[in-house]
């Protein structure tokens, strides 16, 4: 019955497109007077909501704002955009400068006949790392093992969807790149390290996106830590979504339980509760009961709903 009501709700609010399904719902409505009543009440509610419960902007208001915006955009377009200038000219300048410096350095190195012991990368990296040149790491090469990640700042993280390859660029002063397939141990370790140690939320979001491309189960532990400890609510929410297919696992469920209880962001708490409800309603009820006395309308409502359902069940 409740399933059918859910379907009727979706039908009335235009969520169902399949003609056969629509037909079968209408048949069920015809057979059952209670469903018929529910259907007609929903239709009235929909009409009320979509009718005039909302305001429409007047033409004058819109025109006034369009004119004002056109003036603002004209000012914006004349502003000097330093980021564009850098993108157009600065990068090229830096590239030329790097080539000149490299040439100068190589010449000096060649004529001096000895190596420079102050090079930070050469001293740390095993294998055939070439100082001041991009170091590419393929398939968990030992070069990765020699990198002290804490010394380098990530500049960019690129995901090549076609090649299923991930490239992590470090800051220009090191000229360092880690590049490999999405399931490469070097890549996996770097992503895990970044998620736990990086401060920049933008880099973290990209790291999560890269993790999402991988099928490696070793990310779960990192994601659980992120859900519980990351200072950014959007990053915590994204990590929650990423473990949704592992919700049956104890540590994931416990982490979501903690989010319902303690997360500072209400949207995250509701999201976690929704995920728990979909997987284990008894566990979700327990979480709601633990927070029902607090000052959140949503959780108070949920607690009342659970109590009402329990009363019905008795």
């Amino acid at each position, binding site marked *: 019955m409740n399933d059918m009501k859910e379907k009727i709700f979706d039908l009335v609010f235009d969520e169902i497109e399949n003609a056969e399904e629509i037909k079968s719902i209408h048949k069920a409505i015809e057979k059952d007077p209670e469903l018929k009543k529910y259907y007609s009440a929903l239709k009235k509610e929909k009409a009320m*909501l979509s009718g005039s419960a909302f305001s429409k902007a007047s033409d004058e208001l819109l025109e006034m*704002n369009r004119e004002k915006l056109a003036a603002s955009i004209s000012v914006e377009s004349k502003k000097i955009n330093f980021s564009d200038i850098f993108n157009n000219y600065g990068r090229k300048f830096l590239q030329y400068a790097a080539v000149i410096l490299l040439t100068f350095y190589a010449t000096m190195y060649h004529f001096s006949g000895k190596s420079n012991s102050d090079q930070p990368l050469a001293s740390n990296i095993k294998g055939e790392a070439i100082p001041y040149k991009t170091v590419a790491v393929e398939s968990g090469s030992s070069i990765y093992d020699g990198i002290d990640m804490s010394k380098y700042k990530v500049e960019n993280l690129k995901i090549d969807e076609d090649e299923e390859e991930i490239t992590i660029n470090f800051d220009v002063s090191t000229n360092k790149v880690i590049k490999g397939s999405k399931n490469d141990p070097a890549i996996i370790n770097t992503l895990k390290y970044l998620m736990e140690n990086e401060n920049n939320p933008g880099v973290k979001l990209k790291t999560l996106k890269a993790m999402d491309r991988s099928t490696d189960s070793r990310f779960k532990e990192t994601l659980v830590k992120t859900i519980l400890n990351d200072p950014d609510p959007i990053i915590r929410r994204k990590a929650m979504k990423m473990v949704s297919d592992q919700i049956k696992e104890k540590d994931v469920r416990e982490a979501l339980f903690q989010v319902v209880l303690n997360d500072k962001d209400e949207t995250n708490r509701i999201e976690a509760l929704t*995920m728990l409800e979909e997987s284990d309603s008894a566990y979700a009820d327990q979480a709601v009961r633990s927070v029902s006395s607090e000052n959140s309308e949503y959780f108070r409502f949920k607690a009342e709903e659970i109590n009402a359902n329990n009363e019905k069940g008795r």
Partner: protein
Amino acid sequence: MNELKRIENELIDKTVKGDTKAFDKLIRKYDRQIMNLLLNILKNEDDASDAYQNTFIKVYNNLGQFNRESSFYTWIYRIAVNTAYTTYNKRPEYSEFDENFHSPDNGHENLIAEDRELSDEEKLELVKKEVEKLSLQQKSVVYLKSFEGKKFREIADILSLNEGTVKKYFHRAVENIRNNIEI
């Protein structure tokens, strides 16, 4: 790529190169809907106008970073909703406004107390007031679903929420209205 997407991409390219008229054409398709959305979330023409300006200036300044694989309208809506929330949260007077709104003098209780069959206009008035009582996010969901007729998955995309959460918000809002007003 469909024709609309191709035209949209052309206009984006021209705008990024500095053609402000192309930007005007690009946003004309959505700006009325965006203004309606802002007006219904913020309930105040001045705030809606501020949010409208800020939304489209953000769109203009960030157009170069827009991912062409994504939906342009979802991107614009997301910026508009976030701008509306920021505008709302910046105004301390909104809390006073809400308190006044929920006071017994707002007419809602008076209508119910009269214990008679309500006219359609009166019912509509009550629905509006019930919608007003919703949180910003719930109000956005109800608006996007009821007024714009968007699918739950599209709303989830715009508000960066789970589809289940969006559906729950909407269910809850409809239930509230049903419980408080006998339509």
